[in-house]
């Protein structure tokens, strides 16, 4: 099930809280699933004593993955043709993140109807942690 083009308007939006009180456990879980064992994400001793950050922080790709869940919940499964983001601020344990998609354009390309979405994810201080775009096939 995808979105219906004739029911979409520029400016329509959809949002979800994608994580509440992000845990170190989930960051470690993402490291294991993705294979990205960069010690800045899981090794408290390294990140504070060597790298110089206050504590471990989330993989950008974890935020992109969780934001992607909001996007696929909105556009439907297997509908994305493009999903791209910039990581604009770090995400820390304890953060609560809200991801939002807004309809930027509905258009035709090669016989397909597509929706372009503007994506953003903010933390509990309403600071952007991720900004991006997605394109999905619609009915």
């Amino acid at each position, binding site marked *: *099930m*995808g979105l219906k083009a004739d029911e979409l308007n520029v400016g329509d939006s959809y949002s979800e809280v*994608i*994580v509440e009180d992000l845990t170190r456990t*989930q960051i470690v*879980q*993402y490291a*294991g*699933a*993705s*294979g*990205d*064992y*960069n*010690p*800045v994400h899981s*090794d*408290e*001793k*390294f*990140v504070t*004593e*060597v*790298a*110089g*950050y*206050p504590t471990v922080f989330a*993989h*950008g*790709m*974890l935020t*992109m*993955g*969780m934001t*992607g*869940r909001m*996007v*696929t*919940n909105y556009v*439907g*499964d*297997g509908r*994305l*043709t*493009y*999903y*791209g*983001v*910039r*990581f604009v601020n*770090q995400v820390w344990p304890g953060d609560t993140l809200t991801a939002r998609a807004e309809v930027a354009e509905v258009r035709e390309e090669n016989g397909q109807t597509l929706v372009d979405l503007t994506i953003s994810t903010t933390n509990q201080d309403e600071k952007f942690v991720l900004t991006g775009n997605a394109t999905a096939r619609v009915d």
Partner: protein
Amino acid sequence: MAVERFPVEASHILMFARSIGDSNPIYSDESHAADTEAGSIIAPPTFAQASAQFDPDYFLRPKDGQKWFGSGGTASGTLAKKQDEDDSKSDDEKSGSSAGGLHAEQHFTYHRHLKPGDVLSAETKPGESWEKESKRAGVLKFSESITEYRDQDGELVVTARSVGVVTEKVIEQ
């Protein structure tokens, strides 16, 4: 990065979906997925990144016969080592997400969605590099890499563009 063989498996998709907190049955339940438009379990949109598990040269991966990084009794990691080795590394190794550097951007173009049973290969080529001045982290050195994922029939399935950044100093909070 070159990955010769990245077998896409249902249990890996399940673990990956769990790690991003996504309980959508399209990622785990075959009978549910069979009745959907996709027709089978598919992988979440960012799953291709887990190809790192199958990249023999991925520098954050444990390798047979070599001590892995990580703090035991004392702090250890890849940051100091990375700086020492920086000059000897190819642009390819320096680009994208890496320890000592941070991930700045990630883009995926889907030609089709991945599903269990796919056996992918991936080739990464360096893209552009550029510098920017930042108040919070000094000089930022960006480098781009493009990865093409192909399936068992040689068809292009996902194109990924990654931008990594090495900061002059730790980002001020």
